[in-house]
């Protein structure tokens, strides 16, 4: 099944990605225990689409994003970007490929260098990679700024003069200026006010329509993910538990965790009384996850087999795969 997706339609194919962090017992000793932040995650994204990655804090969604860009070294697995395996390329080559894949960060306050004017923040890498000829540089940056809804006067201003929403626009402009094909958005809205969130979502949608970007949209906010994504992956404790087309997942969630997650979202209508599934307990520690299915400790449908064998992702309907023993029995 995995072999036939080696297709030009996909800009990114992640195969069995693993990222383990060693926990050292002594300052210099070798350790044997690991935190499995990302444990055997596979997915692929079609060109020009948006994939949403949802999950609660500590589920490894941010680590997936950073490992794809090789900000963290890959423990095991493949990240095939545009036909090239990123986990194998040399640091030199990687740096040359950097402009093609960009990232928008969560915290608009710490993601902009405080001692650089806006124009330089956006243009620093443009200069480094010689994206445009020198004489066009300034007008290019100004164009990018206009595209992202920033006024030209901001060119010489410093980040401390801007509000969170404007800073996030600068952060987007920095990514867009490099003419990327693929952008990872790591919770870009969670630090913003409600009325500003909508502006940023619209901006990102606009840019995608105009320039055909592919997004990996990491978020814990299900309603935003539902709005912006074409396909969705749900993560729990480092594993992908359900993945597929957005509409299929939202209309027919199969994994008990996805069901609970969807039902837990508060709805802005006092008349709608959600039939809420309230999960008991907390997310277990990733250092020492439960055996078998990681979700079984909180699952209302846990069976004996769940403790023994970890379920694998299986396709139950077209473009909708679930890792759960509930369905493999039928």
């Amino acid at each position: 099944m995995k072999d036939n997706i080696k297709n030009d339609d996909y800009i990114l194919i992640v195969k069995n990605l693993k990222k383990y962090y060693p926990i050292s017992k002594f300052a210099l000793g070798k350790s044997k225990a690991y935190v499995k932040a990302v444990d055997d995650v596979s997915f692929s994204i079609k060109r020009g689409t948006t994939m949403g990655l949802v999950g609660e804090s500590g589920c490894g969604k941010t680590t997936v994003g950073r490992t794809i860009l090789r900000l963290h070294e890959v423990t095991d697995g493949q990240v095939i970007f545009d036909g090239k395996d990123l986990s194998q390329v040399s640091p030199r080559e990687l740096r040359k490929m950097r402009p093609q894949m960009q990232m928008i960060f969560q915290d608009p306050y710490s993601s902009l260098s405080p001692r650089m004017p806006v124009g330089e923040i956006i243009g620093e890498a443009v200069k480094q990679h010689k994206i445009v000829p020198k004489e066009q540089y300034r007008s290019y940056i100004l164009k990018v700024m206009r595209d992202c809804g920033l006024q030209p006067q901001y060119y010489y201003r410093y980040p401390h003069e801007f509000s969170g929403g404007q800073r996030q626009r600068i952060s987007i402009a920095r990514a867009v200026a490099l003419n990327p094909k693929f952008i990872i958005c790591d919770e870009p809205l969670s630090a913003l006010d409600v009325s500003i969130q909508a502006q940023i979502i619209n901006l990102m949608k606009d840019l995608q329509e105009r320039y055909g970007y592919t997004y990996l949209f990491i978020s814990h906010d299900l309603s935003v993910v539902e709005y912006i994504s074409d396909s969705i992956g749900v993560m729990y404790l480092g594993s992908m538990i359900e993945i597929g087309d957005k509409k299929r997942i939202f209309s027919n969630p199969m994994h008990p965790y996805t069901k609970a997650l969807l039902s837990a979202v508060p709805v802005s209508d006092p008349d709608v009384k959600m039939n809420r599934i309230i999960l008991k307990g907390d997310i277990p520690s990733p250092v020492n996850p439960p055996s078998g299915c990681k979700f079984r400790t909180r699952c209302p449908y846990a069976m004996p087999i769940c403790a023994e064998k970890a379920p694998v992702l299986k396709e139950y309907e077209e473009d909708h795969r679930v890792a759960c023993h509930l369905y493999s029995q039928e």
Partner: protein
Amino acid sequence: MSFLNNDKNAEGVDSSVYLTLREERRISRENAKIIKKYEREKNRKKVDEKEYLTEMRDPSNVVEIENLHTYFYTDVGVVKSVNGVSFDIPQGKIVGVVGESGCGKSVTSLSIMQLVPGPTGQIVEGSIRYKASDGKCYEITKMPRDRMLKIRGKDIAMIFQEPMTSLNPVFKIGYQMDEVVLLHEEESTPESAKKKSIEMLKQVGIADPEKVYASYPHELSGGMRQRVMIAMALICNPRLIIADEPTTALDVTIQAQILELLREIKEKINGSIMLITHDLGVIAEMADIVVVMYAGRIIEQGTVKEIFHSPKHPYTIGLMKSRPGRHIKEGEKLYSIKGQVPNPINMPDYCYFYNRCDKAMRVCSQGYPDLIKFSPTHYAACYLYNEDGSEKSAEEKERR
């Protein structure tokens, strides 16, 4: 282009950085004078109780806030965080306060607790009437500090956003809970305090209360800590719980647990909850009465049904439309309120929402609108409506 000549007040740019040194000096000198006056008032000892006893307007309310003004005298100018806010918290109801960051929702709650961070923050005007369990009514704005200590934590309890920082990391949970009991209940002994603490932990749905009682805050997860915070708030049978963004730092599934718990608790103690949040979904689910704040003022208030089914103020309408959800059709663009939240210093003397409003008229830039009554419980401050609550006709809007 429209932004050609807005040099100083460009949108989204913090204009306070453009003050000259001399201007800042002048401001801080003036502030020092004002602050001194208020601090002297607050630090008085042995105040006659008569001075801060008062009468409630409606005896079914726990707290009545009337025309509250809380200002911060900062070095770059006066920030009118709360600028004429009035609302009631009735007995046994959940009042939801919604608004974006900096709209004054948290400062309102801190004013009720007399916890506005001084000396820069001061309650300048208005009254907060509180009905205590013994039937007396107190005027919180005039209460001396030492008297307020007895109310805080006992009659009015607070739950904060960040359960990580609101518990002291060096003491065990049990110690911190017992401390509250021993402080507020005169006849309690260490043993009875422990019994009560464990009882409370059980009440907030903690399966193993003895173990939690004996653990340190860092040993608990975020959801557990928030439960402990709620248990601590409940311990002295408060009449009002102020929950300031109680679920913002939590995950969705944990948020659902905590909201469920808050609802149960309210039924059990028959107290009131003031729920502060920016999440309209949480409000829709929890609140009975909703107060929408913007830039230090209430722009709309009403029952949940009124606010969610027939919102009147363009800001409220915009907020609801700008959240992605089932109401958006495939491929449709999200509605977004243009511009930024205004700079809190030097607010204009007309409608604060004027620059961001789609329906702004000429009259909107000529003075702040009065509250218009739509029903006995529903109010909004907007020029779009006539005195009797009907929407103005198109020609009339044009004329204005």
